[in-house]
């Protein structure tokens, strides 16, 4: 719940967020397994599902896409890598005063438990503007299909 992103602005967005959190507390949204996802970790992850695929969106700004390691092992998708502090940071010469240091630095690893019907053989990953988008296809057998009556 203590995410690295907090609601900004007036009281109303804050209340809306509180309400969403309460709603979720009383109606857990499906993925409450033994490896259910923790809040507040880096990178923040959203997981969505469509009839064809499972979409994992990891918000990982400031990371070189080449350095992200993605593995799938028996229904667990793991994302790991390292976020280094920006090289231009602290290179201003002379004395530097730091006023805020909220951004994550260091090694990270997040493991996401994929739904049963995900196909670990078909994984695609894209990276754009600091967002890693992993698409895991669903198994053919679990896709909805229509059975015609002959």
């Amino acid at each position, binding site marked *: 719940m203590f995410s*690295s992103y907090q*609601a900004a602005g007036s009281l109303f967005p804050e209340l809306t*967020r509180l309400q969403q959190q309460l709603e979720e507390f009383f109606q857990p949204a499906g993925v409450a397994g033994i490896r259910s996802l923790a809040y507040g970790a880096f990178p923040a*992850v959203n997981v969505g599902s469509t009839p064809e695929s499972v979409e994992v969106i990891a*918000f990982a*700004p400031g990371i070189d*896409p080449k350095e992200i390691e993605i593995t799938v092992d028996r229904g667990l998708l793991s994302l790991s890598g390292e976020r280094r502090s920006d090289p231009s940071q602290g290179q201003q010469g002379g004395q530097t005063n*730091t*006023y805020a240091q909220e951004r994550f630095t260091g090694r990270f690893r997040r493991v996401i438990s994929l739904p049963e019907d995900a196909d670990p053989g078909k994984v695609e990953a894209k990276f754009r503007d600091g*967002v890693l988008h992993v698409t895991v296809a669903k198994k053919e057998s679990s896709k909805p299909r229509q059975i015609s009556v002959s």
Partner: protein
Amino acid sequence: MSDNTNVTRTNQTSNVTRTGQKENMPRAALAPAVDIAEGASGITLFADMPGVSKERLTIQVEGDNLTIEGQAQVDVPENIELLHSEVRSPYFRRSFTLSRDLDPAKIEATLRNGVLQLHIPKSEEARPKRIDVKVA
């Protein structure tokens, strides 16, 4: 409000009720995490704004108020159903108050891999000066 933003949207009804309100009403926004450091030449600010492209980013200075604002865009299939979400709004917004010794006209901004870097230089007269002591 394109369909592409719905990966971070959970409560559809609240969006419907909000459309009737004024355009400039504050939308639910997230405050991006920032690093702020001050050196001799000015202040450097880093802000995490994942998914925000250059076109969807605005940096505004009004008086002594600096606001950074952006909208994340992620291309997802239209029929997506969210199972879990930690980022609940595609909007990022955060404001800062600039002190008088900074020169808002010379702010430099770069956006790379979802990280915004701002350099706000100090005005000439506010830079540290070395005063030579003359030996009489």
